[in-house]
């Protein structure tokens, strides 16, 4: 039994053509048919350009957003439409680390109170009392436990992200969704937080859904990586086969665009023309076809079905072909 099984998850946001009359327009299909499984202790990287639906996917999995369709199973239980008490219980197992360490901490609360909030909401008293547990958590994430009564503004960006991590792991959850947890941090601080997340995972057998746009960070931290484009999954594979043998033209373009810190190294670059199409009016057939260098008429007519071409390597493309780009 997988820890998490998501099947054909959809999240559509309604739009209205006229504010006054509230006539519904075409919905924005932020996530449109996402399926994934996650085992305990595993890290799944979720990558894609801004607007591809990766953050919405993370939030919908945690039920911060109500899914439009599909199912979410956690430890074999269907939690797609969990509400109220059931949902609150579920949140003990499912937590989140946010991107913005400035915006996700209440500036009026001392950090001791912020990290203690999960205990109070869940009405859980850890052995030894909340304060002791919070200080142990602070110590664990590399904060000085004596700073219990300080406020978020007294901490640097990296330290604030550590506070966010302490809050997320307070209830010993089984799954944490990390939404761009290191992108707001400086390079040297980024590595500190990545190492912290890895250490905690090893200690507690945590599973992560790691959402990021930085493909280098995702390669480092993930066991498996999923590439999204316009709400749909383009390619999923374990880390090494995805980076060494990408088969989807979008994955190849994305990877070839990442600058590598090695001067005068000639790499082939696959340039994508144009911008991301509107998710309100996605292209017919394969959503990537308008920017795809190898698209044909077939791509406009038929939607490619995600297919397992190698063990564990799933590609949604009519013309998959391995191409080394890294």
């Amino acid at each position, binding site marked *: 039994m997988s820890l998490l099984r998501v099947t054909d998850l959809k999240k559509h946001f309604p739009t209205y053509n006229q504010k006054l009359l509230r006539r519904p327009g075409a919905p924005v299909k932020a996530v449109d048919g996402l399926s994934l499984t996650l085992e305990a202790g595993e890290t799944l990287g979720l990558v894609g*350009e*801004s607007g591809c639906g990766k953050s919405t996917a993370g939030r919908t999995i945690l039920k911060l957003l109500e899914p439009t369709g599909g199912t979410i199973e956690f430890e074999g239980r269907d939690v797609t439409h969990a509400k109220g008490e059931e949902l609150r219980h579920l949140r003990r197992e499912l937590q989140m680390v946010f991107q913005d360490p400035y915006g996700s901490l209440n500036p009026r609360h001392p950090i001791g109170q912020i990290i203690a909030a999960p205990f109070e909401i869940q009405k859980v008293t850890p052995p030894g009392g909340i304060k002791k547990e919070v200080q142990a958590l602070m110590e664990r994430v590399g904060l000085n436990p004596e700073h219990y009564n300080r406020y978020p503004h007294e901490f*640097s960006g*990296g*330290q604030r992200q550590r506070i966010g991590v302490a809050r997320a792991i307070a209830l010993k959850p089984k799954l944490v969704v990390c939404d761009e947890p290191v992108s707001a941090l*400086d*390079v*040297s*601080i*980024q*590595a*500190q937080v*990545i*190492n912290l997340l*890895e250490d905690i995972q090893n200690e507690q057998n945590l599973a992560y859904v790691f959402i990021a*746009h930085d*493909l*280098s*960070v995702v*390669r*480092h*931290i993930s066991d498996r990586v999923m590439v999204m484009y316009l709400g749909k999954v383009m390619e999923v594979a374990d*880390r*090494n086969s995805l*980076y060494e043998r990408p088969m989807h033209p979008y994955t190849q*373009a*994305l*990877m*070839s*665009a*990442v*600058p*590598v*810190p*090695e*001067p*005068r*190294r000639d790499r082939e*670059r696959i*340039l*994508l023309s*144009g*911008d*991301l199409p509107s998710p309100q009016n996605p292209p017919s057939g394969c959503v990537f076809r308008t920017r795809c260098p190898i698209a044909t008429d077939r791509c406009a007519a038929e939607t490619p079905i995600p297919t397992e071409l190698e063990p564990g390597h799933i590609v949604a493309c009519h013309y998959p072909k391995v191409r080394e780009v*890294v």
Partner: protein
Amino acid sequence: MSTNELEPIGVELLESNGPKVDRSRTTGTPDKFLRVDDLHVHFPTDDGMVKAVDGLTFDLEKGTTLGIVGESGSGKSVTSLAIMGLHRGSRAKVSGHIWLDGEDLLQVSDEELRSLRGRKMAMIFQDPLSSLHPYYTIGQQLTEALQVHQKVTKKQARTHVVDMLGRVGIPNPDRRFDQYPHEFSGGMRQRAMIAMALLNDPELLIADEPTTALDVTVQAQILDLMRSLQDEFGSAIIMITHDLGVVAEIADDVLVMYGGKCVEYAEVDDAFHQPDHPYTWGLMSSMPRLDRVKQERLVPVAGNPPSLINIPSGCAFNPRCAFKDASPVACDAVVPELLESYPKHDSRCHIPVPKRAELFAERVAPRL
């Protein structure tokens, strides 16, 4: 404040670390296209003096690109604002020299500076949405940038602007001319900013994190664009970034800043193949690499970047340096000089050069 007060005190010169770099030229006009000479930018605040830039020297020729790398608060953006003269009228105390094509930008009048800005030198900012005015169309804003410096009719201006929008890769430039910034995507806005910067064929282009807010695919397009425009116009480019990958891709020279000072300054190949400062090593080993199978663990730089009000005594990097035991000098007491370790390769560290090469080869390179 006189410049004397800003001189570092207690400096000792280590002969073994190579000749002292000539950083003292204060008279005459340098032959370089751009020469920043002993630049200091200090901000007086209630909590004390913020030494954002503290004695920075570099130069740049036409047709070449300098990459300035550093973390937040290292002084890289403040440097670019100083070159553009954008600290004028603020409380900042700027001293030193900025020679651009024979003129000292710190001495010229506001009037002259205004005529240089946008014509001879231009800047691209990080966030294109907050740099563009939401109430005016892209066309109006670009036309204004042109008309400030050139006597052209409205019609000529429009032709020129539309042409430039097309050159930076904006499709349907004639239609886009009449649109507002909110109708542009992030990548398109940044292209419009670049088009605005290039309208008057500037000889110096300063790009402050121009691609940080953009997706990698768009970043690749913008970097390609900047490279091809440099080939076409022969401009000098200063590229400010925290991404070593971007530097490797676009720069000819690299300047690494830490705590308001230059800690390493070299040609790009040398900087990446034989980096010579422990901070540069730290940056390199804390970055995961796209093209490598997973390293066991990243090696971050310990601690946090320094507060610029309270810069650590001695070498500003010493509290975070993992190699200070190898130094023959007390790193927390003596400020290291910027010295020429190798030809055209300067760095600011007390550890003797051969020892540094050994440390890099044995302890840093294997884990990169």
